[in-house]
C-alpha cells in the first residue's frame, strides 16, 4: 500500500481536528469525574494512539505525569496478553498496575480499540486518578505494595460491549467510595467512546481509511523539530546532585543526575541515586521518565506537540531497584513526592549547557494533606478530603518567579470555604510567606503559610506528605536558596513529615511551604525591584545587607 503524503495545509487541518477530538473527550472526563485530584489538578489524560500504540495526539489539559505513559501502557498490552489480533469492537481493557500504568494504584488506565470499516486502526486511552482504591489512606504510609490497595492486572472491563460484572463487583467491594470510583471508571470508558466517535466522523468526512500515514507524518515532523532544538545546545555531560528529605530522619534521599547532550539526543542517567525507600515515595521508571522528559521538553521545545516524536530523542535510565526505578513490591503510593522534584536536578544539570532556558528550583513538590473522619454536621458521614499546598515558583533568567504556583504538576488549591464546609476544620490564615524565597538578580516566588484548627469533638486522621523541611529550593547561577519549610502542631507533638497521625479538637497545625530559588547574583538586582518588594512586604528589611 502506498503511503499518503499530506501537504502542510491538509496536515494542519487534520491535526487540529485530532487535537479537538481528544480535548473534547478530556473536558467531558474532567467535568464528570468525582475525584478531587482529577478535576482540581487535571490529573488525567486522553491519548489517541495508532494501532501500534504510538501516541498521535494528547489532550491539552493534563499533567506531565502522564506524558508518554498511556502509549507505554498500550504497547505493553499489545506485547503481552492483548496482541493486535485479539481486539474486537466493543472491548475495553483496564489496569492500574503501577509498573505498567502511572506509578501508583489510584491511577487507573482504560484502553479502547478503534475499529473503522472492520479494521483495527488505533486506540484511545485514558488515565484518571480515581477517588479511592482501597488499602491504607492515600499517602506514603504503606509498608509494601499490598497495603496500597487493590491491584487490577490488565483485564477486559468490556468484552465486545458486555460489561465484566465480576471485575466491577470486585472493585466495588474493595474501595471506600464505590459509586464514585466506578463512576469515574465509567466516565473514562465514555470519554474513550466519545473520542472514538469523533475520529470515525473525521475519517468519514475526509475520506480516509486509517490514521497511520497521518500519524507517521505528524510524529516524524515533531521528532525532527525536537531534534533540531536539542542539536542547538552544546554537547557534553552535565551532572547535578540533589538532596531531599526522605523521612527527615535516618533515611534522606539523594538524586544523582547526569544529563548527556549528544548531537540531537539527550540521555539522562540517575546512576548513584538512593536505593528504594522504606516510605512509599518510590517511582517506577514510567513515572521517572515522564517527570524527566517534561522539564526537557519545556526547556527545548515547549511548542511542539506531545506525541511519540517529541520523546524519541530522550532516553532515561535509573538503576533497577533504586528510588527512581521501583520494582514490583515496594510501596509507590506517594511517588509524586519524588517525581515532582526531578525538574530540579534536570535544570541544575541543563543550566550548565543552556543557562537562559531553565529556571531555578521551585518550592516543590506540593504538599498533600488528606483529612479523614466523621463529620458531625453531615449525619456523621465519613469524609475524605484532599487538599494541596504549592510553594513558590523558581526565578528565571530574565524575571522573578511567580508567588505560590504549582510546578511541575499543576494542581490547584481547594477554596477554604469549600474545605471548611466539607471537613471539621477552621482556618486561621492562608498567606504569602515573606522572605521565603531565594534572592538574586531575580527573586524566587514566595511560598505560603497556612494555619488551621480541628473543630470537631471526635478529631480526625491526617495523612501528610511534606518536603523541604530539611532541605531548600536551590538557587541558580549565584542566586540564593529558599528557606526551609516548617511543620508544627500546637499543643506541641511529634508530626510525621510523611505519614498518618491522629488530630484532636483544638489542635492547631501550621505549615510553611518554601518559595523558589533565586537566579543570578543579588548585587545585579534592579534597585526598583528591591524597593517594590519592600513596599509590598514580599521581603523585609532583615534581608538587606
Amino acid at each position, binding site marked *: 500500500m502506498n503511503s499518503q503524503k499530506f501537504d502542510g495545509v491538509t496536515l*494542519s487541518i487534520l491535526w*487540529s481536528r485530532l487535537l*479537538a477530538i481528544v480535548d473534547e473527550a478530556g473536558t467531558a472526563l474532567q467535568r*464528570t469525574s468525582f475525584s478531587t485530584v482529577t478535576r482540581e489538578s487535571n490529573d488525567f489524560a486522553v491519548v489517541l494512539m495508532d494501532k501500534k500504540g504510538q501516541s498521535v495526539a494528547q489532550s491539552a489539559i493534563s499533567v506531565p505525569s502522564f506524558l508518554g505513559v498511556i502509549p507505554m501502557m498500550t504497547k505493553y498490552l499489545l506485547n503481552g496478553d492483548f496482541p493486535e489480533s485479539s481486539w474486537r469492537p466493543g472491548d475495553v481493557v483496564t489496569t492500574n498496575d503501577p509498573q505498567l500504568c502511572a506509578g501508583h494504584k489510584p491511577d487507573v488506565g482504560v484502553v479502547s480499540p478503534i475499529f473503522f470499516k472492520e479494521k483495527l486502526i488505533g486506540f484511545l486511552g485514558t488515565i484518571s486518578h480515581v477517588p479511592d482504591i482501597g488499602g491504607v489512606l492515600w499517602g506514603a504510609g504503606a509498608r509494601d505494595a499490598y497495603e496500597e490497595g487493590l491491584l487490577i492486572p490488565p483485564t477486559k472491563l468490556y468484552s465486545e460491549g458486555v460489561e465484566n460484572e465480576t471485575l466491577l463487583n470486585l472493585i466495588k467491594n474493595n474501595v471506600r467510595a464505590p459509586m464514585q470510583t466506578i463512576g469515574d471508571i465509567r466516565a473514562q470508558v465514555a470519554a474513550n467512546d466519545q473520542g472514538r466517535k469523533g475520529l470515525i466522523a473525521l475519517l468519514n468526512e475526509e475520506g480516509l481509511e486509517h490514521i497511520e500515514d497521518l500519524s507517521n507524518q505528524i510524529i516524524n515532523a515533531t521528532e525532527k523539530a525536537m531534534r533540531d532544538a536539542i542539536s542547538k545546545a552544546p554537547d557534553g555531560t552535565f551532572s547535578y546532585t540533589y538532596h531531599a528529605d526522605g523521612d527527615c530522619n535516618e533515611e534522606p534521599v539523594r538524586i544523582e543526575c547526569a544529563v548527556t547532550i549528544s548531537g540531537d539526543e539527550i540521555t539522562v542517567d540517575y546512576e548513584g541515586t538512593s536505593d528504594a525507600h522504606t516510605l512509599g515515595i518510590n517511582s517506577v521508571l514510567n513515572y521517572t521518565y515522564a517527570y524527566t522528559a517534561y522539564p526537557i*521538553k519545556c526547556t527545548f521545545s515547549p511548542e511542539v506537540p506531545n506525541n511519540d516524536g517529541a520523546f524519541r530523542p530522550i532516553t532515561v535510565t535509573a538503576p533497577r531497584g533504586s528510588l527512581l526505578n521501583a520494582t514490583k513490591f515496594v510501596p509507590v503510593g506517594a511517588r509524586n513526592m519524588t517525581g515532582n522534584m526531578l525538574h530540579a536536578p534536570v535544570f541544575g544539570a541543563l543550566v550548565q549547557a543552556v543557562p537562559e532556558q531553565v529556571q531555578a528550583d521551585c518550592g516543590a513538590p506540593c504538599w498533600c494533606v488528606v483529612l479523614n473522619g466523621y463529620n458531625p454536621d453531615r449525619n456523621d458521614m465519613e469524609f475524605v478530603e484532599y487538599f494541596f499546598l*504549592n510553594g513558590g515558583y523558581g526565578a528565571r533568567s530574565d*524575571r522573578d518567579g511567580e508567588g505560590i504556583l*504549582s510546578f511541575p504538576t499543576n494542581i490547584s488549591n481547594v477554596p477554604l470555604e469549600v474545605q471548611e464546609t466539607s471537613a471539621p476544620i477552621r482556618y486561621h490564615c492562608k498567606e504569602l510567606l515573606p522572605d521565603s524565597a531565594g534572592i538574586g538578580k531575580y527573586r524566587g516566588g514566595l511560598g505560603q503559610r497556612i494555619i488551621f484548627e480541628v473543630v470537631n469533638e471526635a478529631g480526625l486522621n491526617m495523612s501528610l506528605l511534606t518536603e523541604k523541611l530539611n532541605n531548600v529550593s536551590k538557587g541558580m547561577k549565584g542566586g540564593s536558596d529558599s528557606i526551609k519549610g516548617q511543620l508544627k502542631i500546637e499543643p506541641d507533638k511529634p508530626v510525621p513529615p510523611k505519614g498518618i497521625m491522629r488530630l484532636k479538637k483544638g489542635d492547631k497545625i501550621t505549615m510553611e511551604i518554601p518559595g523558589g530559588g533565586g537566579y543570578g547574583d543579588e548585587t545585579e538586582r534592579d534597585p526598583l525591584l528591591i524597593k517594590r518588594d519592600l513596599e509590598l512586604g514580599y521581603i523585609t528589611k532583615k534581608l538587606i545587607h
Partner: protein
Amino acid sequence: MSAAAKKCIKLMSFQLGIDIGGTFTDVVLLDENSEKLFFSKILTTHGDPTDGIVTGIKQVLDENKLEGSSIRRVLHGTTLVTNAVIERKGAKTGLLTTSGFEDILEIGRELRYYIYDLNIQMPEPIVPRNLRLGVNERIDKDGHVISTLDESQLAVQVQTLVNNGVEAIAICYLFGYLNPSHEEKTAQFIRENYPQIYISTSSQIMPEIREYERTSATTMNAYVQPLTHTYLSKLESRLLDMDISGVINIMLSSGRLTTVEGAKESPIHLLESGPAGGTMAGVFVGKQTNRKDLFNFDMGGTTAKASLIHNHKPEITNQFEAGRVKRFRKGSGLPVRIPVIDMIEIGAGGGSIAKVNQLGLLTVGPESAGSEPGPACYDRGGESPTVTDADLVLGYLNENFFLGGTMTLNRQKAEGAIRKHLAEPLCLSVEEAALGVHRVVNENMANAARVHILEKGQDPRHFTMMAFGGAGPVHAFDVASRLNITQLLAPVGAGVASAIGFLVSPVAVENVRSHVGKLNSMDWEFANQFLSKMEDEGKAFLNTAGIPDENISISRRSDMRYLGQGFEINVPIPNGELSRDKTNEIQSNFSLTYSALYSRTIDDVEIESVTWRVLTTGPSPKIRLKQEFEFNSQNALKGHRKVRFAQLNTTIECPVYDRYGLQVGDAMNGPAIIEEKESTFVIGPNSQFFVDDQLNIIVDMDAS
C-alpha cells in the same frame, strides 16, 4: 389619562440604541410608528466618549427632523468597563478581608494556565499587597459569628487605606455570602465617615461560595465603580442637555438590560456589554425572520466570536474571565462569576497572520497584524501574509471596493507576502497557499464552534448561521459547510449589529445566593424563605425601572452536582413554594440537563445544590421593522471576476453583485460574490440564495 399625556406618549415614539466600540460609536434610531431604523456611525471619541454619542445622536435626529424630547427610551452598551480592566485604568482600590486572608486575591488558585511555558506570567492582582488589609472578625461555615467585628481596628485599617489615597474599597470576608452583617457594618462605617469612598461588598456583588472568585469579582467591581459612575452621570446630563428625558437602560453582559442606578451599583456586569449586543442582534433578526435557533458568527479584524441562540434566547454562562494575560488562554485572566452570554472567542480575524511553523504546518493566528501596519495588501509596511491578503488573492475581496471603496488594496503586496512566507516553504502555488490560509482559518473557527456546540449538547445542523462583522460574511460559507450547517443568513446593517440588539433586550436582574444542601434532605422552609426574598428584591428592582408586577416573569435555577463532584450544572427549578414533593421534578430536571451535557446519568449518587439563582425579567420588547434601501442602481450585477472557491479545484469567473441593487424576492444560484459597504458576502457553489422581505440574504446550501 389626560389628552396631553396621550399626545406626549405618541410623540415619544422613538428609541435610540447606542453602542460604543473600540473604533466606532454606532447610533440607531427606531421609529416605532413607521417601523423604520436609521443609523449613524462616527469614530469613537476616546477622550470623552459622550462627545461621540452627542454627535451621533444629533446627526440621526437632524436627519429625521426630530427633537430630543421625542425619544422614549435610550439603550446603551459600552466597552468602558472592559477596557478599564484590560488597560488597568480603574481607580486606586483598597481591599478589606478577614484578618489572615489578605493574600487570597494574589494567591488565586495556584494553577498554571499553560504547562509548557517556563516563562509564564500570572495576572497582577487588581489591589496590591500594601492596600489589602485584614480586619479581625470571623463567620463560620454555617453563617454564625465566631468573632465579632473589631470596630476600633476597622477604623484604623480604613484610615490607612484612605491615607494611601484609595477612591474605592472592596469588602470581602470569609463566608460573607452566608452572613453579610460584618460586611454591611463595615460598609456603613465607611459610608458614615468617608462618604466620598465607593464601596463594594461581596455579599452584594457575588454572594457565592469560593472566596477567591468572590474577592476577585468584588474587587474588580470596586475598581471600575468610580469611572462608571462618573461616566453614566455625565451621559445622563448630556442627554438631558439635548432634551432627552426618556428612560435610559444599560446593556449587561447577559444580554439583559439594567437601569443606570443598577449599572452604577454593579458595573462588573457591564464587562461584556458590547459583545452581548452582537448576540442580541442575532436574537433580533431571528425574531424578525422567525428562526429560533441561530449560530451567531461575528468575525472582525483580530478575533472571531460565536454564540448560540436557542429558542430565541442566548446561552448564558457564569464562567468568565476579564483582563487575560494571554488573550486566548483560558485561566490567564481574573475570574468574574457574572452571567454572561456564552461566547467563544478565537484569534481569527482579517488581520490574523499566517505562517509555516517548525513542523512545516501552515498555521493562522492568533497573532494579528492589527490595523497598523495591517495586512500586506494595506500597503502600510505590513510584510506578513494575513487572512485578508489571502481573501484578496482568492478574488473574494475587491481591491477597489474595500470598505465601500474608501480604501484601495495592493494585490501585488498580498501575493508577494504569501509567496515568500507561505507558498515557497510549502512548495505550493500562491493561489494554493492563499486557499490554504482560508481553509486553515476556517477550520480553526469551525473546530472551536464544533466543540462549543457539542458542549451544549446540540447538533450544528439544526442551526442557521448568521454572519456579522467585516470578515464574517467572507468566511461564513466555508465555515458553515465545515460544520454541516445548511443555511446562512447575512442581515442588513450588520455593521451596527450591537446597537440593534439593545432594542430587543429585556430589562432583568439576577439574584444569587449560595446554600449547599443535599436535595433529599434540603431544609425547604429555609430555601423557600430565601428564594422568595430574592424574588421580592428582583421585583422591587424592576419596579424602580418602571415595570409593574404583572409584566414581570420569574425563573429560578440552581447550580447542582452529584455529591462529590466539583463542577455544577445549571438546572431549572420550579416556581412557587418548594417542598419534598418537588424533589422528583428537580431531580429529573437535573438528570435531563446532565445527560444533555454528558450523555449519561449516575443513578446511585445523591444530588446537591450549591448556588441558587432567581432571574426576574421584564417583557421582551416586540419590534417590527420595515427595511428599505436607497437603491444605488437598477442593475445588481456589477460584473464578473476570477474567484477560487475552496469547494472547486479551479478558478472560475464568478458573478459579482451590488447588495444595494438586489431586490426583495431576487433568487439566484451560487457561486456569487455580493459586495456591500462594510463587507463582502462570499457564496460558494452548490447553493441557492434569495433576498427576503427584510432584505436579508438567505443562502441554502446543498447538504453534502
